């Protein structure tokens, strides 16, 4: 079992956990101060989520070695989602 745990997927997992902690730090609440709308924090959190999702899709879901139609579909959806979220966030009011 340890042979598998020493493989590249565990490295991906470590990156994912690290990214989670970074985004937690970024979005963390101040000490009791009420939350404010903050485009920079939101953009950062969305970007990190994008990276995390791409890591999961690319490595865990093995899309890295998948046919091009699948790779383009996954990447396309991801880019669309991130852009849509940011655009709606910025321009909805």
């Amino acid at each position, binding site marked *: 079992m340890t*042979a598998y745990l020493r493989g590249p997927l565990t490295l991906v997992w470590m990156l994912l956990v690290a990214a989670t902690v970074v985004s937690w730090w970024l979005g963390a609440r101040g000490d009791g101060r009420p939350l404010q709308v903050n485009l920079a924090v939101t953009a950062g959190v969305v970007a990190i*989520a994008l990276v995390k999702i791409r890591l999961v899709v690319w490595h865990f879901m*093995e899309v890295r070695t998948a*046919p091009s139609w699948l790779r383009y579909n996954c990447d396309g959806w991801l880019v669309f989602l991130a852009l849509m979220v940011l655009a709606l966030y910025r321009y909805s009011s």
Partner: protein
Amino acid sequence: MGSANPAAIAQRSAHSAPRESIEPASRHCPGQGSMWFFVIGDLWIFSCYFACYIHDRARHPEPFLQGQQLLSQGIGVLNTVILLTSSLFVALCVQATRAREIVTASRFLALGFACGAGFMLVKGGEWYLKIHAGFPESTEPFFVYYFMFTGLHVVHVALGLLILALLWRELRGTKEPRVEFAETSATYWHMVDLLWIAIFALLYLVR
């Protein structure tokens, strides 16, 4: 997929598992195409929900900001790490199935399943605490989204656990467990993980 003699297996597990036997051969679609059809469609449906959420939030941020303050980011992070770990185990299970090391594969699967069940327990606890503590009516818009998103996600997790249980039956119960079945089940499970990453970012962290 290589010889079945104990010496070869011992040698294989002594070093890192060889790349050729655990990674798919060439440009290979992991699992059944119909499962990808489902995954991609489900992601688009959730994208509609996310779009609605962000749109509503951007128009009237106050109830969302107030409501978000009442959520525990720590529990959210815990859940995220639990699900990421379960995804790792399920991915390793697929690799082991490909290399025909079924005992190892089922161990990984059991660990992944346990993490998934753990996620549901933590989520249930979080809900219980939230409902028990109550929330002000001004934050109602946020909490409707919160319970809907996490509720829909939990339904997906439950379905995922069922699918993993079927994979267990395939691994332990059949003579020649199909790699494609493992890949298909794993694809669904990773989708569940992926959805949670998005939900966690949007509900707990985004401002």
